[in-house]
């Protein structure tokens, strides 16, 4: 059915409106389909009759569509049954809410703060992890090799002594994994922190490390079975706290900017318009 231009809001009222003509063919066709199906468990005669009805109804249906019979002019309903004009209302809904005429938070940290925080936190975390390698007597490369074992399948069968040896592949992979994770977590917190109540250092330095440690603890067996076997959890959690506190401090110390400045310029223009 086509919309005529007379139906636009500026046009005068038409006396009638073209609508599809009521027709029994859909019902008849469905009955034919039903009979066709019913013939399978009962008697094929039902199916044959159903097929005949389907062909007849399709013929009738399409025949109606190809003629002027397809549409009928519906007169407008009586004036008293028509919709009342919508009058200006004095009722108000609540004031602007987040997502509706109100952007929260108004000021945010720039994305770069999250990236810097992630890098700084990652660096301090690497220092803590290396200290664990040195103090535990397992060597400087040990934590890096444990991290790289996530990707390097050969490390699964290595002994502790072998895991303490330097490996260039492990160093590259370990650094990439550590950098990527640090950046991701930093960026995530950088975006999230302005929306959270209370001190960002609390969220970044306490809640974040606890949640992250719990998550890693739960999935370490799947993500990195070697690390799961050899990791020292107290040191692991300590390094998470070091990351969180440093990352939080870096983000907090960055200068906040208006949230609107992160919106693409084209959007801002349409808002202004």
């Amino acid at each position, binding site marked *: *059915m086509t*919309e005529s231009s007379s*139906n*636009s*809001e500026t*046009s005068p*009222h038409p006396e*009638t*409106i*073209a*609508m*599809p*003509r*009521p*027709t*029994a*063919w*859909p*019902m008849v*066709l*469905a*009955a034919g*389909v*039903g009979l066709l*199906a*019913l013939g*399978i*468990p*009962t008697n094929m005669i039902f199916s044959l009759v159903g097929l005949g009805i389907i062909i007849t109804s399709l013929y009738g*249906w399409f025949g109606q*569509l190809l003629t*002027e019979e397809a*549409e*009928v*002019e*519906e*007169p*407008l*309903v009586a004036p008293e*049954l*028509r*919709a*009342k004009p*919508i*009058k*200006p*209302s004095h*009722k108000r*809904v*609540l004031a602007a*809410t*987040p*997502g*509706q*005429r109100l952007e929260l938070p108004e000021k945010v940290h720039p994305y770069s703060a999250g990236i810097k925080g992630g890098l700084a936190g990652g660096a301090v975390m690497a220092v803590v992890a290396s200290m664990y390698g040195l103090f535990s007597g397992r060597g400087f490369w040990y934590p890096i090799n444990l991290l790289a074992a996530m990707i390097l399948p050969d490390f699964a069968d290595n002994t502790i002594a072998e895991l303490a040896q330097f490996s260039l592949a492990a160093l590259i992979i370990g650094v990439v994994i550590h950098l990527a994770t640090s950046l991701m977590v930093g960026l995530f917190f950088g975006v999230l922190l302005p929306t959270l109540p209370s001190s960002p250092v609390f969220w970044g330095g306490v809640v974040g490390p606890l949640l992250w440690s719990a998550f890693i603890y739960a999935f370490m067996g*799947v993500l990195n079975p070697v690390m799961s076997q050899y990791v020292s959890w107290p040191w692991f959690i300590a390094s998470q706290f070091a990351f969180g506190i440093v990352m939080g401090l870096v983000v907090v110390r960055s200068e906040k900017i208006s949230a609107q400045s992160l919106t693409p310029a084209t959007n801002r223009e349409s*808002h202004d318009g």
Partner: protein
Amino acid sequence: MAIAESGQSSASSPLVTQLHGWVTTVDHKRIGIMYILMSFFFMVVGGIEALLIRMQLWVPDNTLIGPDTFNQLFTMHGTTMIFFVVMPMLTGIANYLVPLMIGCRDVAFPRLNALGFWLSLFGGCILYTCYFTGDALYGLGSAPDVGWFAYAPLTSPAYARGGAVDYWILGTSVSGVGALTFAVNLVATILTMRAPGMKLNQVPLFVWMMLIDAWLILVAFPPLTAAQIMLILDRYAGAHFFDPQSGGSALLWQHLFWFFGHPEVYIMVLPAFGIISEIIPVFSRKVIFGYASMAAATAAIGLISLGVWAHHMFTVGLDDRLDAYFSAASFLIAIPTGIKVFNWTATLYGGRLQMRTPMLFALGFLSMFLIGGLTGIMLATVPVDWQVSDSYFLVAHFHYVLFGGSLFALMGGCYYWFPKATGKMLSEKLGLWHFWLLFIGFNLLFGPMHISGILGMPRRVYTYQAGQGWEFWNQVSTVGAFIMGFGILFFFINIAVSLRSGKKAGDDPWDAWTLEWATSSPPPSYNFEQILAVRSRRPLWDLKHPEDPDWKYE
């Protein structure tokens, strides 16, 4: 071109004329109402089946119903409720509302839409024909007894003699084709017939969710229909698709069925999400929180729901890696669902809540669906699923999702849009009775099933021995079932009373903001005398507040 006698058949016309008007109608609103009436009819039938099941489980070693009849009852109950109650109700509500909400006169394919309804109705009739065949008239013994998901090889000719399973296959596949025609029509309508100026990111959330819903129907139903055709070929043409002894695979049926079956859960629940997303803002007097994230979460749910089907098959012995993937994907779907729950809660937060019946049902939905969702996460955990799979814990879970979720919301929708469809308000008093009886009954019925399931009661057992700790919980459940039955009775009484002597509703009884409230109640066959131009997500707000329209901010 002929001119019709009137825009709508008047109530004073002879009955035959009125019936003819309904049978030949291609008006989406009337088709929607017929879908809803069909749903109500089958709700009564499915409800009676459920009550019989609960009566049989009232005491241990009960002999009220025999094992074969019990198998038929739960098969017919499950099939009826999913294919012929929830599906038609959501289809009916969508049929009625979507064109009104997007400000158009009609759907894209009105005749195809009518065909969809009649196919659905005749599908239901075919299913229930089984009670009038074979030895049925001499003892109602010919209904299918293979469960609503009809696992192979139970459906093979060796185990399912007679035509009962055929009626299940044919009834559900014919109604499935009806669902497909509805979906094609709805997608075309939403994509091509929106009011001038209404962008896709400005349609009401109900429309958004129905769009994703229709896409899901288009993706999920064909595999089911294909599987059913394969099953018919197995039964009648000597094929062996699902016969392991002849090179087929019984698991193939499970994969094909659940590739439909899990998205089907979301097909049934997304419209409920849409209804809630319309009701909560209006009765909180606040704009929905996070429109864009709601729409995005809907799309994400639609996408992820297509990749989790094997979480219904953790106990069949799939590879551990497959189990791990399907478990993780099932967890993943909790994220967009959680976003929605958060957004609804955020909309409620700080709102001026009006505790009218639609809002009560919306809040009932929120709490029940949350419980269903949490038990769903438990079941997505493979070891837990191994422990409680096919126990009453699972029965409780999916009823919390589909009844506490879908049906609660759909009933809330009935209360919310009944004034629009009839011009009469439903009674608040009877509505309260309906809600509280349903809410209390529902929790008494399905809450204890979590416990009986953990205590080891398998689903689908027709009776149980005393001394296993199940009697008390089953009795509580049965009491709850009857309370809930009374609740449903109040719903029908409310509809009858309101149709007869309900308070006049007016065009916009809730002071709402979407386009369906801009036309009369009930709307004329052409929906709108003039097609309104739309500039924001709340076109009626813009009209009611010309000094402060939304479009300035969107």
